């Protein structure tokens, strides 16, 4: 299994509070991704990173920001959490673009509840 950890694994917070989720990898992979999983939508890309300090928006980036100051860590921040951001968040990594099969490797997920 790829060495990916996410913290926290569960979090309950209140509307309007800031929240930061952490993804940590031990594989030294260049690309890192944040997805959210919601019923009826599958996984949707929030932001991704293609190197230290290099990030870009995904399909559902509104209300989220990211940072990557080290190869191994990718942080997802909700500046002011809303109930619509209640979801399960997955981090994923991949070695490079065009990797054989194009597969990404996923972390165990963080369940976030915004009350």
């Amino acid at each position, binding site marked *: 299994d790829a060495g*990916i950890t996410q913290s926290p694994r569960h979090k309950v917070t209140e509307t309007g509070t800031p929240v930061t989720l952490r993804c940590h990898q031990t594989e030294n992979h260049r*690309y890192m*991704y944040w*997805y959210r999983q919601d*019923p*009826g*939508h*599958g*996984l*949707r*890309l929030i932001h*991704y990173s*293609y190197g230290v300090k290099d990030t*870009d928006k*995904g*399909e559902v980036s509104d209300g989220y920001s990211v940072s990557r100051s080290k190869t191994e860590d990718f942080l997802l921040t909700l500046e002011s959490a809303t109930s619509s951001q209640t979801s399960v968040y*997955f981090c*994923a990594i*991949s070695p490079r*673009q*065009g*990797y054989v*099969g*194009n*597969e*990404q*490797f*996923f*972390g*165990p*997920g963080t369940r976030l509840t915004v009350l």
Partner: protein
Amino acid sequence: DQQVKQNSPSLSVQEGRISILNCDYTNSMFDYFLWYKKYPAEGPTFLISISSIKDKNEDGRFTVFLNKSAKHLSLHIVPSQPGDSAVYFCAASTRNNNDMRFGAGTRLTVKP
């Protein structure tokens, strides 16, 4: 704008029989198609993929078929086992896999 669709939310199959999971896509720019398997409280795990230059890829009990003209792919599991019970996600991406799109998933139940 859901570019990858899995129209069957659930599928139930008897152990030993074939499971067929289907997926349709709308974006003709997709180059790679993947299937991921997900157990409860775990992250998705890669199962099998196929590039757009092929129409079939096989890995043990798992075979993925691609029909580019119909923009349709399917995953066949033969024979199905109870341990295959999980949610299966279809995904598609261009060569630049920073834009991978996922279907909503199909929950497969394999009954002993």
